């Protein structure tokens, strides 16, 4: 890694000297309601080769503060304080001066790789542009270097793929391209803003690996901004927790995870469902929502949501003060010493009652009534190619899927994006005759349904989508949105009038919410409205398509608890799709793992997660980060190579074999079996509710 250092550059710092030192950083934006104080008095430092994890929920100021470091905030932003990079003050530099530092000494990796690349230039050209921007090299030389960089970040056939355009790359590949641009000039600091949030767990593990490689190759300090405490636990050396624009706790990763001293950090840790926990504990939702950054509450900004706040808390905003005897661990809470003495766990501090008793271990007697039965379901999409609209092949999105859901059961469907989860849902929700296979809802085959019968079945089958804002009409008050399904199905007016407040109460909202518009509600409240709307017709089966993935951790916990509670109280069945395996483990009773349009493993959630047999399930579980640095360090990861093969042309025999670590270790003879024989789904044999589609399935410890 070489790049021309200009004589104006500060020299590479001696060890111990920080790469970046931020102090008293204040950022505010104009808004109609007044100035939004997005960052307030933030200070931190990053040493060379160190990973600082900045954690917080949306609106906590974590992204804004790093954009301030890059000098990439909009014209309306007012920034003050100090940002010293290698001892040189960055605040107040002109765009031209900053441009010489950006991309060369400080690089940035953004959240959404799908939109982070310019769609009209090839990836090779974009990386080469990054090279040429700071190094006076020829076009040819830059192109050669671009291929080298793409190779370094793990793009297979880099020389050939450099000519491809962003839309021809998967999300993980695009993020690699962005990282390749970031390390082009051997930077001193890499700021990664939610670099894996939009990616599947398996790809997330790969990208985090690439970031580690980048750090090793460049020796750069890394600021890792994320809302995912699991990622932080695995990657970061030190952690900074932000709330309402301020740092509320900071320390080494072990200090923060093992001995959190600020109630907000405690809440965040308790709100997280964990994939490595068999026992169902209630999650800790933090009540309320983050304060308006225009009008902050007096005193500690977390006090209004804090379960242990005392009147003193509103007197003044507590400063970050050393706790536990000043070992670099600092928290902004006047009661942190008391918390330290009591060694309380989140559930105690937040007074969370167990939602339901822990289930008896061992096989559970399944209810007899089958709510949804799916047999050999097939959904193929024809693909046309280019301007010519020539038929080019078939996407086998769903290719023979079989499962059933009994009454009162939560059935989770997991798998990487593109595995056919959503297509399966849409086929079921469509209530039309499938291309092949059968779908029976409440005992009725959808093929036999006429218009009226289909309408009747719709009552029993309701759905909640991922993005609550997008699935509510912004011009319809909440009460009307909840009443709408009942109006459509001809409920008497009087009954609707009575039922709307009932439903709102059921999902934890008050009647006063009925007149509000979705825009006036928080994300969690909106999702509650969607749930109330889905429950309006008293359905038997609710389809939940990523119901919490658009929500912040602390809010998500409340919605998960609500779903758990409703299922038990109303005897609902769920078909639950989520990419977050921790959430699925928490919610689902039974789980199916999908790969390339097939279910490769299905069974009781505890069995599948606790004793996964299919190598794909094992790889998925192994890729899920666990919010515990000690466990994370001890884990041996199975990193899947490459991306999902195209569902238009699945591999012969076992579809997973091209990425299978087990397959790679087999004898040539056994490998031939994988390549030729499509493994059938077989029960495990000891009578447990557990089926696996693998010729050579064997247990392996992954969590």
């Amino acid at each position, binding site marked *: 890694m070489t790049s021309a250092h200009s004589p104006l550059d500060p020299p590479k710092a001696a060890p111990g000297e920080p790469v970046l030192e931020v102090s008293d950083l204040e950022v505010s934006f104009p808004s109609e309601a007044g100035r939004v104080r997005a960052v307030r008095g933030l200070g931190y430092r990053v040493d060379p080769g160190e990973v600082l994890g900045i954690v917080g929920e949306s609106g906590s100021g974590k992204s804004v503060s790093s954009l301030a470091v890059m000098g*990439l905030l909009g014209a309306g932003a007012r920034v003050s304080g100090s940002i010293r990079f290698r001892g040189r003050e960055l605040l107040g530099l002109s765009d031209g001066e900053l441009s010489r530092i*950006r991309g060369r000494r400080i690089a940035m990796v953004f959240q959404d790789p799908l939109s982070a690349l310019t769609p009209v*230039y090839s990836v090779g050209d974009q990386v080469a*542009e990054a090279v040429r921007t700071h190094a006076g090299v020829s076009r040819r030389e830059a192109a050669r270097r671009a291929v080298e960089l793409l190779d370094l970040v793990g793009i297979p056939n880099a020389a050939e793929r450099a000519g491809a355009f962003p*839309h021809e790359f998967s999300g993980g590949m695009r993020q690699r391209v962005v990282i390749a641009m970031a390390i082009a000039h051997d930077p001193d600091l890499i700021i990664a803003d939610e670099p894996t949030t939009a990616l599947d767990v398996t790809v997330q593990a790969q990208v985090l690996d690439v970031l580690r490689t980048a750090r090793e190759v460049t020796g750069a300090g890394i600021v890792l901004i994320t809302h995912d405490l699991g990622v932080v636990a695995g990657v970061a050396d030190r952690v900074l927790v932000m709330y309402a624009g301020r740092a509320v706790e900071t320390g080494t990763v072990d200090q923060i995870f093992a001995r959190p001293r600020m109630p907000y950090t405690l809440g965040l840790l308790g709100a997280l469902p964990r994939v490595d926990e068999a026992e169902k504990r209630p999650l800790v939702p933090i009540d309320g929502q983050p304060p308006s950054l225009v009008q902050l509450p007096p005193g500690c900004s977390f006090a209004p949501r804090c379960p242990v706040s005392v009147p003193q808390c509103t007197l003044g905003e507590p400063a970050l003060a050393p706790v536990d005897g000043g070992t670099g661990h600092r928290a902004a809470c006047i009661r942190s010493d008391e918390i330290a003495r009591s060694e309380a766990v989140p559930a105690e501090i937040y007074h969370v009652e167990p939602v339901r008793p822990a289930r008896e271990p061992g096989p559970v007697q399944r209810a007899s009534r089958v709510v949804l039965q799916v047999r050999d379901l097939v959904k193929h999409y024809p693909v*046309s190619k280019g301007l*010519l609209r020539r038929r080019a092949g078939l996407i086998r999105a769903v290719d023979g899927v079989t499962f059933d859901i009994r009454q009162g059961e939560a059935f989770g469907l997991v798998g990487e994006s593109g595995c056919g989860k959503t297509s399966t849902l849409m086929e079921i929700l469509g209530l039309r005759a499938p291309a092949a296979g059968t779908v029976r809802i409440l005992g009725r085959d959808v093929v036999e349904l006429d218009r009226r019968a289909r309408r009747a079945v719709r009552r029993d089958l309701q759905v909640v989508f991922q993005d609550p804002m997008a699935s509510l009409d912004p011009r319809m008050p909440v009460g009307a949105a909840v009443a709408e399904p009942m109006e459509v199905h001809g409920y008497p007016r009087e009954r609707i009038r009575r039922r709307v407040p009932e439903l709102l109460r059921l999902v934890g909202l008050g009647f006063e919410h009925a007149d509000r518009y979705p825009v006036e509600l928080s994300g969690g409240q909106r999702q509650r409205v969607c749930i109330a709307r889905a429950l309006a017709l008293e359905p038997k089966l609710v389809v939940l398509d990523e119901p919490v993935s658009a929500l912040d951790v602390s809010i998500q916990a409340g919605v998960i608890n609500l779903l758990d509670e409703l299922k038990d109280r109303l005897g609902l069945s769920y078909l639950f799709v989520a990419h977050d395996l921790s959430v699925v483990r928490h919610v689902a009773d039974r789980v199916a793992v999908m790969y390339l349009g097939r279910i490769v493993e299905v069974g009781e959630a505890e069995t599948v997660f606790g004793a996964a047999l299919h190598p794909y399930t094992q790889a998925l579980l192994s890729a899920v980060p666990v919010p515990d640095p000690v466990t994370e360090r001890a884990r041996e990861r199975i990193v899947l190579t490459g991306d999902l093969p195209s569902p238009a042309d699945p591999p012969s025999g076992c579809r997973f074999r091209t990425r299978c670590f087990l397959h790679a270790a087999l004898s040539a003879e056994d490998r031939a079996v994988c390549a030729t024989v499509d493994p059938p789904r077989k029960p495990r044999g000891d009578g447990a509710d557990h089926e696996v589609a693998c010729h050579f399935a064997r247990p392996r410890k992954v969590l």
Partner: protein
Amino acid sequence: MGGFLIRRLANYVLLCLVATFLAYALASLTFDPLARLAERNPPPPAAVVESMRQELRLDEPVPQRFASWFGGVVRGDFGRTVTGQTISDELGRRIGVSLRLFLLGTVVGVAAGVLVGMVGAVRQHRPADYLGTLFAFVLLSMPTFLVGTLLKFGGLQLNLAAGTTLVYFTGEYDPGLRGGWGSALVDRLQHLVLPTLTIALHQIAYYSRYQRSAMLDVLGSEFLRTARAKGLTRRQALLRHGLRTALVPMATLFAFGFGLLVTGSVFTERIFGWYGMGDWLVYGIEQQDTNIVATVTLFVAVMVLVSGWLADVLYAVLDPRVRIGSLGGHR
């Protein structure tokens, strides 16, 4: 690819045929080219009117007349006007006159429109943006003949102020001009300025609005931020990544705008005495001449279809997502 292009071409030919037939039928059914003969004083003898009727084949049914006219078109013969001139002779010259105006007007209109739109987006809510918006809305709400007349007036003031003729108001060139090749070019340009401006101004106003909103979409995009994070200055990022991407949705607009110029140029050509296609259409209607109307319609149809094809090509050139038909394409 070949089969696809041929199919597409066949579609185009059919569309041209339908459009021309409809125009031909409409014109034939409403026009009465003999009326003017009958109005003459003294009225011409019945035999003359009759021979005219024979010559124009007014007794035959419309489809039959169209078939024989179109048969001629295929061979390059567009028939005769009511006054007996061959249309083919004049067609080439008139197309030349119009295309010169359209092409230049479009180039100026597109370039300036994109510029005004981009500046408006980059300087949103600042004086430059407000000025551009005001300019666009004033022009868009003004009819062409008013713009043309105002330009004429402006040109007159300019000439008076300069004390010499800088710009001309009528015709494409000065018939009495003597001099070499160079002075002929200057003369032609002096005649071109005002009509080109009349056509371009409207397009600038129109395109600038679209370009502004396309650019605003791009301004908030993450790839622009990535470009700046690489170390590109704001200006470099805006030009290389922002403008380039914001041009993609404009391609269709440009192409079709060009195709539809003929109809819009009627007033411009009349005001400045340019004998192009737009002028010819009006003349054809005045003369109650079916063949001229059908010929101009055919020209418009060809222009629109060529533009459609051009739009597709432009789109493919500008946007790789269209160029390479990838498997995952949802288009």
